[in-house]
């Protein structure tokens, strides 16, 4: 265990999250569902309030004070995002609604222009629907193939399968999760980028989970596309990010048409603005983007090294205590894993687990986690999942274990 970084003062950080002091069913609220969406610190809530109370107007086209203030605040977040992921330029950052829209944007625009019918897109067995369904839709509309890279029993990418999928040279895009929202697995992204690039394919990473837990450097990875959502990163809903390398973005046709994405419009023809504006049609999520900026400031002030270290401790602790529970099985055992743990219990269905834990104030998620095919691969219909945030306490994991013991007794 590295001692290089100062451990988080989690109790102090928790004061920033008003919701965590709520009671649920009369019990202290134990929120273990950050993987679905994280809670918001006061700093984010305050930033959104501030813009609405003091600096609000529509952006970009306004020549008056409020519009300039709002535009500046909005565009400043592009710089913050670029810094967060170490993009080469702010113009490589496109604002979307969420990770899902980011993937769809790439599928609709790059997919339908850079890919030809017969080209293949490869994803893995452990993708979120957001990184599977858009490629099925592209396949059906555009004639590209869709290939599935297998995972091993431990829940890691199967490199033999990867080789196989790439064997005939048809794969032009490898689109993978950076961290599985079910198994917690981190994928070896630098190696994957090299692998894909050597074979003439681009690499897209679904960073919806990964962005939250560790520092991400898209240039060090050499990712061609990287997507994530603001709401999992302690920011508001309604705002997501697409990163793509400048030379790729420049070649991409627009996704949606409307205001702000054009260079000029005539009744018959229009020309497109340069990236990133080309991909941001209509009034953007101004307030939410500014909220995301505050979230980025927040996590960077806390520090990704400390967050990663904290979550590593939590995950180790959780794996330890959960493995003590009779009849409980943890899914996935990847070497490199983040703070997301899925499990099933003998005789107790995941939904019953979630409902019974809820009565104890403990929030976990139960279901297929938008990864239905992975459920089939794992031989289950659903799992219960506990996922951690920077505000999660080891005691909360102990409460989960106690709660699960009760569940076990009820169903024993």
């Amino acid at each position, binding site marked *: 265990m590295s001692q290089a970084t100062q451990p988080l003062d989690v109790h102090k950080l928790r004061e920033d999250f008003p919701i965590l002091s709520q009671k649920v*069913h009369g019990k202290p609220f134990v929120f273990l569902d950050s993987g679905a969406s994280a809670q918001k610190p006061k700093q984010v809530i305050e930033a959104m309030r501030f813009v609405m109370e003091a600096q609000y107007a529509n952006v970009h086209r306004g020549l008056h004070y409020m519009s300039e203030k709002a535009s500046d605040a909005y565009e400043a977040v592009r710089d913050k995002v670029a810094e967060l992921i170490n993009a080469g330029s702010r113009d490589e950052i496109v604002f979307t609604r969420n990770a899902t829209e980011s993937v769809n944007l790439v599928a609709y625009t790059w997919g339908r222009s850079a890919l030809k019918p017969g080209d293949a897109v490869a994803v893995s067995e452990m993708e979120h629907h957001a990184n599977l369904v858009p490629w099925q839709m592209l396949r059906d509309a555009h004639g590209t193939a869709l290939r599935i890279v297998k995972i091993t029993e431990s829940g890691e990418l199967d490199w033999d399968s990867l080789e196989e999928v790439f064997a005939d040279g048809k794969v032009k895009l490898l689109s993978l999760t950076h961290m599985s929202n079910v198994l917690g697995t981190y994928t070896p992204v630098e190696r994957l980028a090299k692998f894909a690039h050597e074979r003439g394919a681009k690499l897209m990473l679904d960073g919806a989970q990964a962005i939250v837990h560790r520092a991400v450097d898209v240039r060090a990875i050499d990712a061609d596309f990287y997507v994530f959502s603001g709401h999992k990163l302690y920011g508001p809903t309604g705002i997501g990010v697409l990163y793509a390398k400048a030379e790729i973005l420049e070649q991409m046709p627009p996704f949606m048409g409307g205001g702000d994405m054009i260079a000029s419009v005539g009744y018959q023809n229009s020309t497109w603005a340069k990236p990133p504006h080309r991909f941001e049609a209509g009034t953007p999520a101004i307030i939410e983007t500014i909220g995301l900026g505050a979230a980025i400031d927040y996590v960077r002030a806390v520090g990704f090294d400390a967050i990663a270290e904290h979550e590593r401790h939590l995950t180790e602790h959780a794996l330890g205590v959960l493995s003590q529970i009779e009849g409980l099985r943890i899914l996935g055992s990847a070497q490199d894993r983040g703070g997301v743990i899925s499990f099933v219990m003998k005789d107790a*269905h*995941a*939904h*019953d687990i979630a409902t019974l834990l809820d*009565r104890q104030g403990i929030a976990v998620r139960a*279901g297929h986690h938008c990864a239905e095919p992975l459920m089939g691969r794992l031989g289950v*219909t*659903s799992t219960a999942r506990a996922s951690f945030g920077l505000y999660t306490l080891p005691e909360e994991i102990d409460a989960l274990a106690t709660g699960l013991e009760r569940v076990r007794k*009820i169903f024993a």
Partner: protein
Amino acid sequence: MNEALYDSIVLDRARHPRHAGRPAAFDAMGAGENRMCGDQVSIFRVGSTYRHEAVGCAILAASAELMCDAATGKNAGEIAILAKSFEQLVKTGQASPELGDLNALAGIAQYPSRLRCATLPWSALKASLAGDPGAGDRDHD
């Protein structure tokens, strides 16, 4: 802890079902599926008795069990009335005498997101009565 929903009848019937398993021969069947969570249930009519095949949570299994109990010997009209009362029960949490053991599921009213677990067998039952095996509830929400 208020675990009233998982009272002894519910747990007992979920773990020790009396009507579970596909009969060798049956007069009618109906199925229901909740694709959001993978719950599946099939209902089989054999004369005026019912059996089920339920794959899912305890609430689904117990609901299927207690429904088979209650439906036995009833005609389509009587079952329709029972189904209406049951729907009231799980929405309002108000027990009502004609529901008998089904009242054990009243607690579901506190868990709107679990409602479908309790009502899925009834959709499948209706489908079996309608003679349309696929007419069960297949929504995602």
